[in-house]
């Protein structure tokens, strides 16, 4: 399966033990493909730059780039989902729309997010995409 990860889920999984981390480890060890889109990549970089001290920030960014280089996480470029943004804006606010638009790509099976704005539209989006709380994903993905 191809799973798109939202920023809040990633930071929840990257920093701490818990359900999100278990899910991310499961996704890495199983034969699922993990994706982020351009906006999520930029948010990762910005959040790391704002929260980490300069020396540690450098190490954290090396890790992010390692994941992308070795395809542990696959980056979806904006031009691939840009045409879906107008449709996505019918369901969600303009800031979250690019992420929803990326999840509309036929290759993406799931979007994992903890964002309540996404969870509220879960029933409205008529597609194979199911938007789940992190704690729900294990039951649904197996």
């Amino acid at each position: 399966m191809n799973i798109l990860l939202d920023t809040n889920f990633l930071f929840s999984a990257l920093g701490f033990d818990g359900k999100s981390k278990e899910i991310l480890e499961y996704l890495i060890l199983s034969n699922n493909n993990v994706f982020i889109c351009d906006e999520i990549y930029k948010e990762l970089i910005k959040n790391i730059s704002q929260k980490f001290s300069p020396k540690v920030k450098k190490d954290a960014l090396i890790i992010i780039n390692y994941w992308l280089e070795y395809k542990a996480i696959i980056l979806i470029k904006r031009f691939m989902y840009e045409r879906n943004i107008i449709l996505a804006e019918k369901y969600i606010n303009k800031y979250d729309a690019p992420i929803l638009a990326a999840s509309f790509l036929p290759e993406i099976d799931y979007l994992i997010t903890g964002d309540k704005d996404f969870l509220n539209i879960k029933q409205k989006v008529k597609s194979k995409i199911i938007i789940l709380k992190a704690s729900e994903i294990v039951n649904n993905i197996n």
Partner: protein
Amino acid sequence: MQLNPIQIRLPKRQIITIDKKVKQKDYSSRSEAIRDYINKIETLETLRRFQELTFKENLNTKKLLTGLKNIRKQVYNETLNN
């Protein structure tokens, strides 16, 4: 990426497991299976390394997740301006 040959010795049990995966078409070859296993372990190690960095910075869940909505707005505006 250039691939270099090495010779490795594995217990029979592990060879059977790998061959089973190749037979099931999970991998195209033994080499591909072993490369994938190593990649996965390396990725898990980097996950742990990232976690160590957050401890080093005294970042808890709340601190790490705080402000993400604002960052999303910033990224949106920057993308729009480009």
